[in-house]
Structures are given as structure tokens and as C-alpha cells.
């Protein structure tokens, strides 16, 4: 960047030189390798949503509703991308309160090519703009996951209104609560200053400064809950919103009577595979640096996914008598969901166990529980994402234990791995899960009601019978 602007580069060097003489610690630097990895991860996460998730979902609906799903997912990506740049990034990733950030970076004010964002290492920053875009893709995929729950019966106008409201009032606050913190440079800097401070007033001031830096974080983050890549923020959040949605909107016309078989499991297989590929950007990218931690997250995202696909498929084979492709695909997604919060914390063998467990648990929820309770979660957003996310969030609290091959949790104030406390960590994880369930569950219910009053949630029975593609969009997926 700076080579194109020699004058400003000169000023930066000059300023840095002056600064070095007055400040005790050097400014963190941006590593080009980390930046390159984060640019790559960002587009991989976009690939997850379009076309990955869109095809995964699209293949599961009837052919008359194929385009409605694709349109809803594509629309979600576009509208959230804009909102993220306008105010979403600022609300999620600036300080403010424990529950929501402020507007200091609204319209990306002050975020320039020279701006830096913290990673998980001291003195290793990335360009803030790549962090903005990386997190933007997370904000985009989360509401896109929800549309699977009310697929085949929601009006497009309702989706068009619900999505912007939902990301603004549910996603941005949750992302802030779970992921916002001052960063390693600020904490380590304050800790060093405290160590260097003598006795008396200087020490009290330094301690106050460290406390202030530690307090500059989201509510769930301060409670000690760990979520590497979005088990709570993305999956529980979307899963519970979908569950509430399918309850409020009601079952599809003909549910339980008509044949609602997936129209193309071929598409679903392509979409699922693209999700898996893209998920390496999601999980390994969430490491924010191209180092061993990213490699660990990648390894876990391989093995947990494979384990969950196998466990779902074999469990179904034992119970139903046949191994199904859709079972293997569903298990793979459940495994990816569960390993998301654990990706950088668990060891590979722990991730395999997590995958084996989540495959069976999600199968149980998508078949036994769903049929027993009789709700119509069209594409199992609750059974896979919410339940898989909870298994992952709680499993992360167990698997992070260094004694089980986990990485432990870094304490940036001491620069060492903190002692692992099972009970305390599980309480923290539970707080993270419950906060998300309550905030998203209640908040989404209110938003559905608001949208219902303004434009109406549900397509008419005639529209539904005819299919949303031709009635809502005046197009057909297949003209053959």
C-alpha cells in the first residue's frame, strides 16, 4: 500500500521514528502472510454461503421452490454486506457497552488501508479492512442459515424485512458480546506497564489501566466463554431463530400428508461439499494468523466432519436399515457446526470424539424429537445448527483442557496458558449458550411478530401450492 504513496510512507517512517523515542513499546506490525491468509479465508467463507449453503438448501426443497431459497440466500448476503459496512462492523467491533458497540466506525469511518486489527498474538496485526470483510461474511451467513427453517412458505417481502432487522438487533449484539475484546496488544501492554510500574500511585494507576482494558470486552467474553469461530454467535443464534420462526409461521400446507421429498440431492451434495471447503476459511481463518493454530483448526475441521458424517450414516443404517447420502451430508454439516467453537482449542482426537457424538445427537433431534413434537423445521436448522452448536459449545469447554490434548486458554496478562478449571469453564460456556438462546429466541419472536404486522409472514395457501418460484419471483428453476 505505502509504496504507491511515497510521501505518506515517509511520514509514517518519520512518525514511527519520533514515536519510538518517546514510547516504551513499538507499534504492532502487519504481517503480509497473515493478511494473505485472511484475504483467502474471507472469500472461502463467502463461498460457503453462495453457492454452498444456497445449493445445500435448494436441493432439499421441492423443485417449485428452488429459486425462492436461492433468492433468499443471495439477497441475505447482499443486504447484510451493505449493513455491515454502514454500521454493523461498528456496532459489533467497537467498544461501547457490554452488549453492543458504538457508532465510532459507522460508515467505516477512520478505517483506512493503514488501519490495523488485532489477532491472537502480541505484535501480529492484520489490516483492519480484511478483518472487516472477514467478519462481514460471518454476519452474512448467519441469517442465511435461518431461511432453511421457514423455507417453502415465507413471503419474500417478509424475508426482505426480517433479515436486516435480525442482523441489526440480534446478530450485531451477540457478535459484540462474544467476540469483542481489547486484543492481545492492549492487554499485554497494560500488563507490562503494571509490571514496570513501581509502588504507590504509579502502580495503582497501572492496575486501573489494566482493569479498564480487561473490562473493554463483550459480556459473554468477560464471563470467560470461548467460541473459536462462531458456535454460539453463528449456529446457536441462527438455529434458535429458525426454530422460533417455524413455530410462529406454522407448518407447510400438506405437511405430513404430501410428498415433500428433496428435489435434488445432487445439488445438496455439491452444496454440502462447498460448505466443507469454505468452512476452512471459517474455522482456520478465525485463527486470524497463518500459523500452527490455523493448521490445528484446519485439522479439526477435517476430522470432526468426517467422524460426524460417519456416525450419522452408520447410526441411521443401524436404526433404519439403510445408509443414506443425505444422512452422511447432514452429519458432515453437524460435525462442522460442532467443531466450529472448538476448532482452535481442541486436539484432533478430541475433535473426532466431538464429531462422533454430534452426528448421533443431531440425528436424534432431526428424527425422533422433531417427529414427536411435530414442528415443521423444513431443513432442520434447529436440529443441526442449534443442537450441533450447543454440543460444540459445551464440548469445547471440555476439550480445551490441555490434559485432553486441548490447547488451553491463553492469559494475555501473564503471557501464559491459564490453569484449566472444568467447572468454571463449563459454567462460562453455559452462560454463552443461554445468553444466545434467550437473546435470539425472544428477540427473533418479537421481530417475526413485527414483520407479520407490517407485511405478513406467510404466503397464501394458493401461492404455496403453486410454488414460490412462479408466484413470488415469476421464474422457474427448470424449464424442461
Amino acid at each position, binding site marked *: 500500500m505505502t509504496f504507491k504513496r511515497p510521501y505518506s510512507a515517509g511520514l509514517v517512517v518519520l512518525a514511527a521514528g519520533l514515536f519510538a523515542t518517546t514510547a516504551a513499546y513499538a507499534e504492532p506490525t502487519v504481517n503480509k502472510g497473515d493478511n494473505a491468509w485472511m484475504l483467502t479465508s474471507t472469500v472461502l467463507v463467502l463461498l460457503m454461503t453462495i453457492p454452498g449453503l444456497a445449493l445445500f438448501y435448494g436441493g432439499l426443497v421441492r423443485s417449485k421452490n428452488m429459486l425462492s431459497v436461492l433468492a433468499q440466500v443471495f439477497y441475505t448476503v447482499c443486504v447484510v454486506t451493505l449493513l455491515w459496512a454502514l454500521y454493523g462492523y461498528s456496532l459489533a467491533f467497537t467498544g461501547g457497552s457490554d452488549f453492543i458497540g458504538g457508532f465510532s466506525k459507522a460508515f467505516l469511518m477512520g478505517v483506512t488501508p493503514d488501519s490495523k486489527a488485532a489477532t491472537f498474538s502480541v505484535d501480529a496485526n492484520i489490516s483492519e479492512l480484511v478483518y472487516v470483510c472477514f467478519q462481514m461474511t460471518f454476519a452474512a451467513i448467519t441469517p442465511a442459515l435461518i431461511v432453511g427453517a421457514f423455507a417453502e412458505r415465507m413471503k419474500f417481502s417478509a424475508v426482505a424485512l426480517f433479515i436486516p432487522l435480525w442482523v441489526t438487533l440480534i446478530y450485531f449484539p451477540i457478535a459484540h458480546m462474544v467476540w469483542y475484546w481489547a486484543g492481545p496488544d492492549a492487554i499485554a501492554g497494560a500488563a507490562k506497564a503494571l509490571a514496570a510500574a513501581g509502588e504507590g500511585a504509579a502502580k495503582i494507576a497501572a492496575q486501573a489501566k489494566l482493569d479498564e482494558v480487561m473490562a473493554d470486552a463483550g459480556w459473554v467474553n468477560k464471563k470467560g466463554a470461548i467460541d473459536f469461530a462462531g458456535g454460539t454467535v453463528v449456529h446457536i443464534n441462527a438455529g434458535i431463530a429458525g426454530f422460533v420462526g417455524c413455530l410462529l409461521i406454522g407448518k407447510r400446507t400438506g405437511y405430513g400428508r404430501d410428498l415433500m421429498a*428433496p428435489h435434488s440431492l445432487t445439488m445438496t451434495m455439491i452444496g454440502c461439499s462447498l460448505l466443507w471447503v469454505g468452512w476452512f476459511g471459517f474455522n482456520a481463518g478465525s485463527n486470524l494468523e497463518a500459523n500452527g493454530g490455523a493448521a490445528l483448526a484446519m485439522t479439526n475441521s477435517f476430522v470432526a466432519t468426517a467422524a460426524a458424517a460417519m456416525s450419522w450414516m452408520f447410526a441411521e443404517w443401524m436404526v433404519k436399515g439403510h445408509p443414506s447420502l443425505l444422512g452422511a451430508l*447432514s452429519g458432515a454439516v453437524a460435525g462442522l457446526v460442532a467443531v466450529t467453537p472448538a476448532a482452535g482449542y481442541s486436539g484432533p482426537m478430541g475433535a473426532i470424539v466431538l464429531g462422533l457424538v454430534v452426528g448421533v445427537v443431531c440425528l436424534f433431534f432431526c428424527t425422533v424429537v422433531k417427529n414427536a413434537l411435530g414442528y415443521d423445521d423444513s431443513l432442520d436448522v434447529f436440529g443441526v445448527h442449534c443442537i450441533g452448536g450447543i454440543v460444540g459449545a459445551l464440548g469445547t469447554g471440555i476439550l480445551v483442557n490441555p490434559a485432553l490434548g486441548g490447547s488451553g486458554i491463553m492469559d494475555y496478562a501473564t503471557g501464559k496458558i491459564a490453569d484449566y478449571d472444568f467447572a468454571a469453564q463449563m459454567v462460562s460456556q453455559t452462560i454463552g449458550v443461554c445468553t444466545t438462546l434467550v437473546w435470539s429466541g425472544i428477540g427473533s419472536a418479537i421481530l417475526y411478530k413485527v414483520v407479520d404486522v407490517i407485511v405478513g409472514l406467510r404466503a397464501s395457501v394458493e401461492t404455496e401450492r403453486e410454488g414460490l418460484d412462479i408466484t413470488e419471483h415469476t421464474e422457474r428453476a427448470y424449464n424442461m
Partner: protein
Amino acid sequence: MKIVMAIIKPFKLEEVRDALTAIGVHGLTVTEVKGYGRQKGHTEIYRGAEYAVSFLPKIKIEVAIASDQVEKTIEAITSAAKTGQIGDGKIFVINLDHAVRIRTGEADAAAL
């Protein structure tokens, strides 16, 4: 003149066509249909949803022939389409009042 309409298993179509050609029946209309008779459907399972699929895919063929060819035609279709399993299909014979070849205007026997 008669129309012989037969519902057969889809994979038997080529054998039936060959058998009809062998006895001098040229010209055949084929339609993909769904239905059920004594052969009940099957169950499809997608995650937790189980569907009893009672309409199975079949092929419907229709041939227009002279009345004296009916027995031969039924014989040819039966021997070619038979597997001995339930679901082999059925043959219906219907009277045909009139036939016209569009290109030439030829009528009835000359049009077949």
C-alpha cells in the same frame, strides 16, 4: 382397427419395441406415466421424514393396428415385458373407429 395400450416396466421398453418390430408393427407412442396396481409403492426416508410412495413410474405404450393383428401383438408384448414379478403391467385393447395419416390424407387401414 384396435388400439393396444400397454403399461409396462420402464426397463422393458426396448425389448417390447424389438418384439413389435419383429411381428411387423411399426409405429409406437410412448408416455412416461405413474400409477399403481397390485404392486404397492415403496418407502422413501429423508432425515426424519418417511414417505410412502404409492405411484411408481411406468411406461405406457400405444399402438394402432388392424383387428387381425391383436392376438399377435398381445403375444409379443406379453412375452417381451414379462418378468414374472408383480408390477409387470397390463394390456388394454380398445376399439378404434377411424384413422388418418396427416401427410397424405390416407384413411383407416392405409393410415396405420
